[in-house]
């Protein structure tokens, strides 16, 4: 079994175009280039962006839900490039009957608290607000269907000044992270 794998590898490496690359350095170069290309591609997949007026919406994402779950959380980063503050006042999602923005925290005694954000999330002029695990999240409630890994869904964000914009939420695995921070806690 193992020798057949080795044989296959030898055949592959002696096949054009690899056969032209006799030096180890050349082969390493090819591998490194391919990996960089893959990395760059995955970055562009993750780091999708939307823009409403002066508000940049970076990488809306969610997590797959357990079987039969009725709620899901959504996360994203909001950047205000303007000279005036704005507010994310409401969100809706095609998967949910009702959507709210919540603030979550775990206090010193280990109790998780969650409450609706009154009056929306403020995005100060020139500022950035992150909705991420452990802090603010978009709460999709009354799910019409389960959220599945890799199946993006549509949503609409409404800002006090910048108006409404349609976005798409990428879906990670149940315990998945945003792609750049390792602990999704």
């Amino acid at each position, binding site marked *: 079994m193992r020798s057949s794998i080795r044989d296959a590898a030898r055949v592959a490496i002696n096949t054009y175009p690899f056969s032209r690359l006799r030096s180890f350095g050349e082969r390493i170069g090819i591998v490194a280039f391919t990996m960089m290309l893959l990395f760059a591609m995955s970055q562009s997949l993750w780091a999708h962006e939307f823009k409403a007026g002066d508000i940049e919406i970076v990488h809306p994402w969610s997590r797959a839900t*357990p*079987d039969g779950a009725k709620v899901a959380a959504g996360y994203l980063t909001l950047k205000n490039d303007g000279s005036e503050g704005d507010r994310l006042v409401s969100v809706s999602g095609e998967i949910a009957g009702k959507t709210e923005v919540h603030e979550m925290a775990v206090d010193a005694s280990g109790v998780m608290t969650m409450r609706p954000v009154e009056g929306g999330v403020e995005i100060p002029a020139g500022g950035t607000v992150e909705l991420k*695990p452990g802090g603010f999240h978009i709460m999709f*409630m009354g799910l019409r269907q389960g959220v599945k890994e890799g199946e993006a869904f549509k949503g609409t964000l409404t800002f006090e000044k910048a108006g409404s914009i349609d976005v798409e939420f990428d879906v990670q695995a149940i315990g998945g992270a945003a792609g750049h921070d390792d602990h999704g806690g």
Partner: protein
Amino acid sequence: MMTMAAEAKVWRSRLIASAILAVVVFGGLGAGLAVGLFGPAAQPTVQIGGPFTLTDQTGAKLSDTDLRGKPFTVFFGFTHCPEVCPTTLWEMSEALKALGPDADRLRVLFISVDPTRDTPEVLSRYMQSFDPRIVGLTGTEQEVEAAGKAYRAYWEKVPTADGDYTMNHTASIFMMDGTGRFVGTIAYEEQADARLAKLKRLIAGT
């Protein structure tokens, strides 16, 4: 009048004596502190754990007495939970995978604090997304209340806009030994390797 040599000898022995004293006193203090902080003596200031009878996701009854002989972990949550509960169940599933065969020497329990919505049927479906060894538990309001009291777990309903509700609840995992005695907790923010190390210690009984 002592000679210089004799005087030096006295000083040296005084120095040695005080050094020994310092070692004894501070060493003792340090050891005492270490025992106080990390030793078993520090743990049971409050009683955590106790009797309960609940229903698992297959509809079978499970009591604290059925758990004797194997260490276990208890986590309180609910299925209408957007982040903490699915993440914790997923992390515990990953931990069980990482423990390999040792995972069978541990029981992992998830107790719903929302029994009105989390019936055994709902739990049975929900738990399919996680390691099948994790036991989902629910019961009557009173049964769940009693379990929560035993573990000093806290929860409350928080109303949302249209008469619906979500919940605040204790998000730590309680670690219990094979006699049902409280060993420690795993915090929600804890990293995977720290969580795994704690579970390994719990299984080893050290």
